[in-house]
């Protein structure tokens, strides 16, 4: 298992760059990972999604799917795709320090 240093903290990551231990995640790491995904600044709306993913991820052990995010946060699909353009599924999970979502919807 590879490690890398993000925002001054060494964390475990897999080949695809997803963190493998959600407990190592911090908000500072999220900010850094977001930049890598082309999101310069995390707004309140972004955090709403990330917080939801963290909660779901920690309780179920899995990253939520996009539909679970929209139903859980009340955000529309359009908003979600606007907040995390070009591939929200992976981006959201990566920024939230979780693995790839396993559901199909």
């Amino acid at each position, binding site marked *: 298992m590879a490690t890398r240093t993000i925002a001054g903290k060494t964390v475990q990551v897999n080949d695809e760059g997803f963190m493998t231990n959600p407990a190592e995640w911090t908000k500072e790491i999220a900010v850094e990972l977001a930049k890598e995904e082309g999101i310069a600044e995390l707004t309140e709306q972004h955090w709403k999604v990330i917080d939801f993913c963290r909660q779901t991820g920690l309780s179920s052990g899995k990253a939520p799917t*996009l*539909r*679970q995010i929209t139903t859980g946060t009340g955000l*529309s*699909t*359009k908003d979600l*795709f606007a907040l995390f353009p*070009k*591939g*929200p*599924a*992976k981006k959201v999970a990566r920024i939230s320090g979780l693995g790839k*979502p396993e*559901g*199909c*919807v």
Partner: protein
Amino acid sequence: MAEETRKIAFICSKGDLDMAYPALVMGWAALGNGIDVTIFFTFWGLDLINKHRVDHLELAPVANTSMKMSMMGIPGNLGIPNLVGVLPGMTALTTKLMKDKMKALGVPPVREYLEMLVDGGAKLYACKMSVDMMGLKKEDFIDGVEDIVTAGDFMDMTEGAQIIFI
């Protein structure tokens, strides 16, 4: 970094409930992974975007060897005999079974799924020849269908895309 965005196009040619979902599920997965999605509806596939029909798609048990009774909770590999499949109400029953299973998995109905796809940036098109053949008009289609296009237009707009026929 100027990597070209991957493109995928689905051709939906079937109007059965079970044949509606493959493009919807894969298209949604593609959008979630940053892939451009175009869906072309042709022949019976037009039922998926026909606003009078989209909520009434069905799954017929007749000649469908995959339709097993295990879906109804009966264990084993028993199929629904074709002779039974032709009885009145059987199509409604199998349709309901599939809709219930989908609902239990949290899969949205086709109409809602198409809205999600459009909101996520998928482009939906109706096939000109099929539209003419079935006597349909643009206003017969759900919101979000961009246009009625010819097969040639479709080829132009999907240059470089991976095409999947369903």
